[in-house]
């Protein structure tokens, strides 16, 4: 019994450590703030831990985890919890970067994108992040968001359209990003 529990915990630990970097990045795009992102991923994995025996035996545990995280993100919005997505003077989102034209341009892009994302409604933001950062298909994104494929299409299209409309982002968006 104890051995089984140990094995279960070890399996969970391995899974958690392996997924932490990727999910933290996704959470960062959703929340726009380091601590909020860490908190979101931590909350997600607490729930995953509770249901670990089920998750581990699932066909695709990552699908489950993504769904939990999107739900947790949506819940925070419903509860009107504070989010820090928009770059603010007391919450520097863009880390200090070495000098250099490209790097500065990159930092500008980051700040502009995060600010633009912050102005999207949560569902549009989720659709854009899942489709174009997580690289999920529309069906997979729909599963993660708990909505129809049509809703994902609509939210992603609206989100992209709004991002394109923002001055400063339109050029990089339509040109496929800056050259790095």
């Amino acid at each position, binding site marked *: 019994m104890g051995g089984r529990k140990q094995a279960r915990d070890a399996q969970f630990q391995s899974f958690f450590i392996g997924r932490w970097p990727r999910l933290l990045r996704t959470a960062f795009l959703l929340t726009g703030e380091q601590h909020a992102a860490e908190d979101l991923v931590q909350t997600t994995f607490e729930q995953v831990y509770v249901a670990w025996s089920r998750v581990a035996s699932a066909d695709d545990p990552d699908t489950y985890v993504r769904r939990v995280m999107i739900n947790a993100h949506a819940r925070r919005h419903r509860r009107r919890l504070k989010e820090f997505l928009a770059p603010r003077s007391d919450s520097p989102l863009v880390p200090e970067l070495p000098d250099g034209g490209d790097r500065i341009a990159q930092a500008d892009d980051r700040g502009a994108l995060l600010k633009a994302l912050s102005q999207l409604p949560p569902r549009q933001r989720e659709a854009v992040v899942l489709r174009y*950062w997580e690289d999920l298909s529309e069906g997979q994104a729909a599963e993660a968001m708990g909505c129809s494929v049509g809703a994902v299409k609509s939210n992603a299209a609206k989100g992209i359209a709004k991002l394109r409309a923002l001055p400063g982002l339109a050029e990089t968006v339509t040109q496929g990003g800056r050259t790095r």
Partner: protein
Amino acid sequence: MSPERETDHGMAHDDAVPQGIALLLADAADAVEIGTAPYQAVVRGGRRRKTRRWAVTAVAAVVIAGSTGTLALSGVMDGDGDRGSSAATRPYTAEERHVYKPRKTTVGTGREQGKDWKVTVDVWGAPRNEAEADRQYAAMKRTYKVAEVVLNRGSTVPAAPDQSDWIGKSRLYVRLTVGDQASSVVEEAFAEGGVPSGGDPKTYTTPLFDPIALTTGSGKLSDRQLVVGKVDPTAQQVRVTWSDGTTTEINRDEHDTGDQDPRTPRLLDAEGSSMSWFVVLAPKGLSHDSTKVMK
């Protein structure tokens, strides 16, 4: 990104837009600092949640009484589990995913009026393409003999699988066998991979022998009512209350040695389902009133 993915973006503008966004998102995501994964904190939080859940779980049971048809529920409660380990890296075959042969778990047995009865939970893995879906449908027809019973009990026309709805969905059937007659009393479809279970318990009732016995006549029950329930897997005890106010407690056997009478109702896990199940026969002349998770 695959060409297929590109075409299903459904965007009104050019493909460069998503591509550009993808690059910008990747760049922005790089800005986050990846520290050490807080494993201990997560485990502590998880344990707190587990304790809290056990303490306060309450059930709003949904009762569907005297059903004569398959109860089709588009569910999102169950996880599809066929992998032994999340660390597995090679893709699993359709056979390993139980696409053509369901995982079957007996969740209740008994004997009534000289006939043995049995309830099983069959979980079919999600087909991933049309070929798998077609083959699964054929396998279901073979396994359950009569397609109408499986897909839409009471229907005379078997419902051909709608590919858009069939692919990517696992299917769960609760099968009631009385003597040599079997039928499906519950059908659910749920997305491959499943989603969190978490407190959406349901109770189903059906006459044991005659589908219409409980719904016709002068109100006198001529049949025994069978209650099939599914609850959160963390539930340890469920109380079923009958129409006269009496109750039956159903417990989970944490240390089942196999010596227990298999006819004793108990909470059991079913392979491929993320919920726990129980089956209990209503006392003679009584019907199900409510279900509540006690702990």
